[in-house]
């Protein structure tokens, strides 16, 4: 196996996730795209961990998974609150900060 095949898979998934974050309006779908990005980062961390033979990458990947779980919990609570207050989960509707 080449190291590069895993890194390139991670790059492709990262870019698909970035595309999703930019193009989507629904808040739940934006959160899903962020999950794609975090997973591509984990693949990179584990590939370099195998290359270097050190367990650091595994540790960081575990921490990334934990942070992602916390982020999804708070994110979905915010989406729920937004839906309750304005009956919509479109991110374009949150425009009070615009002058």
């Amino acid at each position, binding site marked *: *196996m*080449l*190291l*590069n*095949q*895993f*890194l*390139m*898979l991670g*790059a*492709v*998934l990262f*870019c*698909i996730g*970035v*595309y*999703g*974050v*930019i*193009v*989507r*309006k*629904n808040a*739940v*779908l934006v*959160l*899903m795209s962020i*999950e*794609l990005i975090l*997973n591509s980062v*984990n693949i990179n961390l*584990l*590939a370099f*961990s*195998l*290359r270097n*033979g*050190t*367990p650091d990458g*595994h*540790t960081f*990947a*575990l*921490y990334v*998974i*934990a942070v*992602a*779980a*916390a*982020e*999804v*919990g708070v994110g*979905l*609570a915010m*989406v729920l*609150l937004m*839906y309750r207050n304005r009956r919509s*989960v*479109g991110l*374009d509707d949150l425009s009070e900060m615009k002058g």
Partner: protein
Amino acid sequence: MLASDVLVAQNVGFAIIAVIMVIGALRVVTTKNVVHAALWLVVVLAGAAAQYILLAAEFLAVTQVMVYIGAVMVLFLFGTMLTRAQIGAEKDLNNKNGIIGLPIAVLLLATMLIALNDGFKAEKLSADAPLVSTQQVSDQIFGIYLLPFWALSFVLLAAAIGAIVLARRD
């Protein structure tokens, strides 16, 4: 490179899983149905778990299945069901001028692929490299990375309390 070098079992498995993951990821960002997006995300996350096994990280693979496919997907489906009346195809999931995302993503991908190709052109993952055991990972978490572990515990606690406070009806 000889064909017998390329067609080893790991490479064939990697290629099949990678193609499935990329198709699933593209469906996540293009589908018109939020529940379908969540189910395609399950495909991508399961494929990522399989790649972790190929990378000799079996503990991470099991964690991925339990945390992502078990817990996070249930949260997503709950979020979908609590925030909409009907479950089905919808029209305005995308931004009006979201097409700008396509050139950005393609440019980013081209930059990353060129950089990766420059940096690690044909570097091999040797088959007899020392593997990382789960015991080493736990030694690290409860050793030199203990302080981040504590911080992470507080992050999770704060996230749980924050989610309850935000979503509570009072």
